[in-house]
């Protein structure tokens, strides 16, 4: 669930291009502010990601089976990026209402083929860590592995809910040409959460999360060649390591704290507030002489965010939504042996958005539109490379979607997103334009199952004409009373 806090942060700031959690929302242009949907309720579980509130959020048994295919291709990329990627996933996600609690368990198996990865042996080279590992070849990487996890929520005192979540993931990677690098990514994360329901109109919660992940990379040629890799410190400077087998490890430990509240000050107005703080320590290590693990570098990430979201229903068929979020991400990295800082990065993101969703009275149609405007302030000091870059750019996103009810059982959906980012903190491009169209179908109201399907096409282009294309399709089969 949390590969890296910074990755998640950056992806949230940018745009969600990975597999979505809800096919209906995706098909309606990813309209998350104003749309009325079961997964967008303003409660502590959906809004605050507080597992303790699962007890209140879920009231029926369901098993979701979700196969998905996603593909990315383009030349809007950075030096160590891949040329194209295809991801195939299968997800089983079940919720069971127990006698004194609610249990949710899931297992995902994901296969990713990355073509023409330029030299990088690390799966995610750009996560704010300046310690890259690279060989000398361009090759394909195949990653695959499962992820399992569960959530359990129960009421141990009247109106006081407790939740626990645990996730475990393993991903194996293999490069198909010299240096035949193998990588093993292992992640364990979990959280404990509390929620107190003072009344039907007021809930408050807190969550503490721990994360421990490790990416081990071994370059070992099957031929008799020595494996030759380069340890980069920043973008410019690297030193060579050569042996029959070369190892490197990235180890991250993180702690995150979160508090949330939702309340209803007046009828038909729901408000949610949350704040998150996370601190992550990542060490880059390799075997060296008599030392089992030599710490080459150390990176620290500290993230703080505040968010507010409101839903207002002036009429029964109209919902107005409002959302605002502020994030402050700080990171720094040092060479451990010399205790010298080589990179310091501060990234602030502020966004504000609003929208409506409206169910027509005379037409079997729901219309939803949203507008988000934000500002990104990035201040990067790559001391070792003597590169100092500052950006203070705005961005906007327009999202719109339509859902047509063909019959009580069949729904057709379409959506469109358009956005322009003055600065893209993920790939570093300027004036990046985003166009995304989506379509989907829902087959509902059957006694034993429901089915949603979505397909999305995204086109992303920066100011100098580099572009990426994304295609994502996903199905969700929900079985009830299984």
């Amino acid at each position, binding site marked *: 669930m949390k590969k890296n806090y910074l990755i998640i942060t950056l992806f949230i700031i940018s745009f969600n291009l990975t597999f979505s959690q809800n096919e209906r929302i995706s098909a309606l242009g990813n309209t998350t502010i104003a749309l009325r949907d079961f997964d967008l309720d303003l409660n502590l579980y959906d809004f605050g990601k507080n597992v303790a509130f699962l007890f209140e959020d879920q009231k029926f048994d369901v098993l979701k089976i979700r196969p998905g295919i996603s593909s990315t291709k383009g030349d809007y990329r950075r030096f160590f990026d891949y040329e194209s990627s295809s991801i195939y996933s299968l997800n089983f996600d079940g919720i069971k209402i127990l006698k004194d609690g609610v249990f949710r368990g899931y297992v995902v198996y994901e296969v990713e083929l990355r073509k023409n990865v330029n030299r990088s042996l690390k799966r995610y080279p750009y996560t704010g860590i300046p310690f890259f590992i690279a060989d000398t070849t361009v090759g394909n990487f195949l990653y695959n592995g499962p992820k399992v996890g569960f959530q359990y929520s129960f009421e*141990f*005192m009247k109106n*006081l809910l*407790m939740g626990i979540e645990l996730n475990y993931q393993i991903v194996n990677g293999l490069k198909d040409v010299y240096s035949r690098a193998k990588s093993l990514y292992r992640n364990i994360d979990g959280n*404990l959460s*509390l929620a107190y329901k003072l009344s039907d109109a007021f809930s408050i919660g807190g969550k*503490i999360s*721990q994360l421990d992940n490790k990416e081990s990379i071994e370059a070992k040629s099957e*031929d*008799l*060649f*020595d494996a*030759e890799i380069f340890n980069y*410190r*920043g973008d410019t*400077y*690297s*030193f*060579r*390591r*050569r*042996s*029959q087998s070369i190892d490197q490890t990235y180890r991250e430990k*993180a*702690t995150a*704290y979160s508090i949330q509240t939702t309340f209803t000050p007046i009828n038909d107005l729901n408000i949610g507030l949350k704040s998150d703080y996370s*601190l992550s*320590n990542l060490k880059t290590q390799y075997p*060296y002489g008599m030392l089992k693990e030599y710490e080459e570098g*150390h990176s*620290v990430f*500290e993230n703080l965010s505040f968010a507010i979201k409101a839903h207002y229903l002036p009429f029964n068929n109209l919902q107005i939504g409002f959302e605002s979020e502020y994030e402050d991400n700080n990171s*720094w990295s*040092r*060479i451990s042996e*010399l*205790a*010298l*800082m*080589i990179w*310091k990065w501060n990234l602030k993101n502020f966004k504000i958005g609003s929208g409506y969703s409206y169910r027509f009275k005379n037409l079997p149609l729901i219309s939803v539109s949203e507008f988000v405007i934000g500002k990104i302030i990035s201040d990067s*000091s*790559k*001391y*070792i*490379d*003597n590169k100092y870059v500052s950006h203070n750019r705005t961005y906007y996103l327009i999202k719109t979607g339509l859902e047509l009810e063909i019959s009580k059982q069949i729904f057709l959906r379409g959506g469109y997103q358009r956005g322009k980012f003055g600065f893209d903190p993920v790939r570093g491009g300027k004036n990046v334009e985003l166009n995304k169209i989506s379509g989907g179908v829902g087959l509902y109201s059957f006694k034993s199952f429901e089915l949603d399907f979505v397909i999305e096409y995204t086109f992303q282009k920066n100011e100098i004409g580099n572009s990426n294309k994304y295609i994502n399709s996903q199905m969700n089969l929900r079985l009830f009373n299984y």
Partner: protein
Amino acid sequence: MMNMSDFQSFRLENIFPMSFLFVIIFIILIFSGCAENPPVMVDGQGQLEIVVLWDTSYVDSIKTYIPVENARAIVASRYSAKICYTDMDGRICLTNLPTSKYGITIRKQHPVDPDIILVGAKQDIDIISGKIVVDTIYVKPISSAGISINEIYCSGPVNNFFFFFDQFIELYNSSDEIKYLDGMMVMRFSSNTAGKGPGADEEDDGDIDGVTYAFKFPGKPGEKNYPIYPKQFVVLASDAVDHRFVCATSYDLSSANWEFYNQYSPEDIDNPNVPNLINMRPDKTADFLIALTSDVVILSDGRDSIWQDGIDILTVVDGVEYQSNPHPQYKKTLDSRIDRSYVLSPPRYSGKSMQRREPGLDTNDSLSDFEIKDKATPGYQ
């Protein structure tokens, strides 16, 4: 006596209520995150200012220093090597350098005599971020005058059955006069690992220690039976055969000038058409083979042939150390009077060789003297 109801009441949650346990876990987790303060100093702020001067007292009785203009400087650190040139005042100023140990080699063609090169070097300059290092390098004229090790091929050809028996060492006479190989010795230094290392002057007694293999040209030092002519390449093959019959990616060494032959080995190949260097250590029964990526090779004039107590540095004609990884991952061991640095060797089983950038030009600084060639060139540059 305890009855069943007592057992039922003896439950963990009755002693430690579940809520209490969770509160304890919460408190532990709250204090588990700990922010570390960032370092005060930053990297990439080092500065190096070098003045390159030529001490003309070598050719003139009056000692004067002339700034060396437009000299090529190779600045090497653990990160990389970069080339820059001195300005009109013989200065080089490099800024924004990352913290590391640096070595600088200066070269410039003599303004009058093309056979002379002005050479200077300084090793182990500690550059620390935020500090300015100012230093002077004095260049000396060096003429290409004598026999030197011109090429070492030891990595083995591209193969998957551990074939590396096509090794050779190439000598070159860069002088304008005939030199003689009589009695000269070619040695591999790889022992003395318990002390300062192979090729080091262990007791500071003027000789280098750690001889593993010692092979000798026929004759005695001073005799003139085995000439090496001016600008001639001489190939010393481990086995002077066409290795391509065994491994297609290997080299034809059947026309090598000399062959290492271990007379104490029952199975060493001997090409009767190629004269032999013979083994001086009866306890060694293997052919002359050197390590694929890391070793020390010495050519001496043979006047000191008692290898057990080390080889007198004054008798060393040339020596080269090569290593697979840069300092500080690997330690340099060969005495700096013979070689101030080391060659970064090519990967094993790559078919690549180490060759001097210019034939025979030896400034006793292998890092800048040698380059890696994609193909070995036995008998030619």
